């Protein structure tokens, strides 16, 4: 038979108190210094192990690539050189346009708010957080590199990838755009439409949802979606995805659009953290 002893009551009380405390801290989003200190300490310790293993894995992959994929790499190198030459020519013409744009802005007395010469920190992916629904990455740059919480993170092609949610000493955690808790201002990037909405991740899907679009806003499939920069958390104009379909929402009072995310979080190896913009 199950006997109630003082020891069992004590143990049960401790467990119940612990569970209640955790739920209380989470529900009300309290930030205790002691918790934060403990978490950071453990995280920094774990990150060292994870970074080492990932570093070894990457080295093995690189050795494999250099041995067995040399022909492919030479071809890729040749193609990239060609692309670089084309981009140099393109950047010269862009510089001309930028100067012209600057002159016109001065004429109209418009404030500069585009992403001009942002300060960035490069990092590589060291791991992906293990969870059922949350989508986040661990990257190899932390507070020692000037990374702070809430800094935007971009990846290939300047596409918005997410936001730093925790900066350790030499690594950080990045909440991805596809995470159900991620929210950012976004807009349509079309010459004749600037429809605004809120982009957020969807549970169980790699596609995103653009919500709270005005009921009469001009938005169509194939429209490109970029960050709006309204909240001030992200620079304006970072590419996010492409509209797949548009539906009425809130009984026709607004619209929502399913957006295909430009990046595949599983294949991302390098990221850029925007430290100032």
């Amino acid at each position, binding site marked *: 038979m199950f006997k109630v002893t003082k020891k069992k009551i004590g*143990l049960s009380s401790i*467990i119940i108190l*612990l*569970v209640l405390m*955790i*739920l209380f*801290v*989470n529900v009300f989003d309290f930030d205790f210094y002691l*918790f*934060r200190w403990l*978490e950071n300490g*453990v*995280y920094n310790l*774990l990150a060292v*192990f*994870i970074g080492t*293993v*990932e570093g070894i*894995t990457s080295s093995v992959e690189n050795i494999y690539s250099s041995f067995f994929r040399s022909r492919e790499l030479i071809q890729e190198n040749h193609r990239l050189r060609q692309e670089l030459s084309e981009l140099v020519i393109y950047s010269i013409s862009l510089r001309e346009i930028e100067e012209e744009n600057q002159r016109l802005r001065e004429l109209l007395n418009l404030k500069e708010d585009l992403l001009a010469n942002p300060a960035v920190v490069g990092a590589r992916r*060291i*791991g*992906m*957080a*293990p*969870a*059922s*629904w*949350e989508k*986040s990455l*661990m990257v190899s740059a932390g507070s020692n590199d000037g990374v702070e919480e809430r800094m935007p993170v971009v990846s290939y092609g300047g596409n918005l990838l997410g936001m730093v*949610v*925790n900066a350790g000493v030499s690594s950080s*955690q990045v*909440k991805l755009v596809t995470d*159900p*808790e991620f929210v950012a201002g976004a807009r349509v990037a079309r010459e004749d439409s600037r429809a605004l909405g809120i982009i957020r991740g*969807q*549970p*169980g899907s790699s596609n995103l949802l653009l919500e709270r679009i005005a009921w009469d806003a001009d938005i169509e499939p194939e429209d490109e979606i970029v960050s709006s920069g309204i909240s001030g958390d992200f620079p304006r104009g970072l590419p996010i995805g492409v509209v797949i379909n548009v539906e009425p929402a809130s009984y026709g009072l607004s619209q929502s659009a399913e957006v295909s995310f430009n990046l595949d979080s*599983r294949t991302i190896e390098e990221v850029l953290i925007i430290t100032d913009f």
Partner: protein
Amino acid sequence: MRWRLGFPVMILIILILQTTFFSRLPAASFGPDLLLVIAFSAGFLLGRRQGLVVGFTAGFLQDILLGGGLGLYAVSRMLTGGGASLLQGKVYQENFPLVTLLLFFFTMLHELLIFLLSEQVIFRIHPLVALLQNFLPTAVYTMLVGILFYLLIYYFLAGGERAHGK
């Protein structure tokens, strides 16, 4: 006493595997839930106290890697370890096919608990979609890979080799 050293090492190895290796594979959401297997095995093979302690430690470390601090997984893993200990003495630890099935059901229950407690998920996805896209693939994956880890724990950490020797 072997578990005091063995389980922390195993938790660390599994956390590294889950964050680096399994996250690269295209199956299930984040691969087999091996931390659940650890919590389950500790409770089922060694008892309630061990199940609770190992479950809490594994969940706490997972929560830290998710950037949320003490949270959902610390509680859910602890409950898994505690729940599994209730089966101790009622199910043969050597009945591996049955343990495989138990792993399946514990994963399903755990996924359901996480689903019910995730406010950003529960109202935004149909339960049937969650069941088919998330619960079932994770449970099957965990069952298949998890039994291998259970065997490792059974033979090397819980004294299973002595029982078999006798």
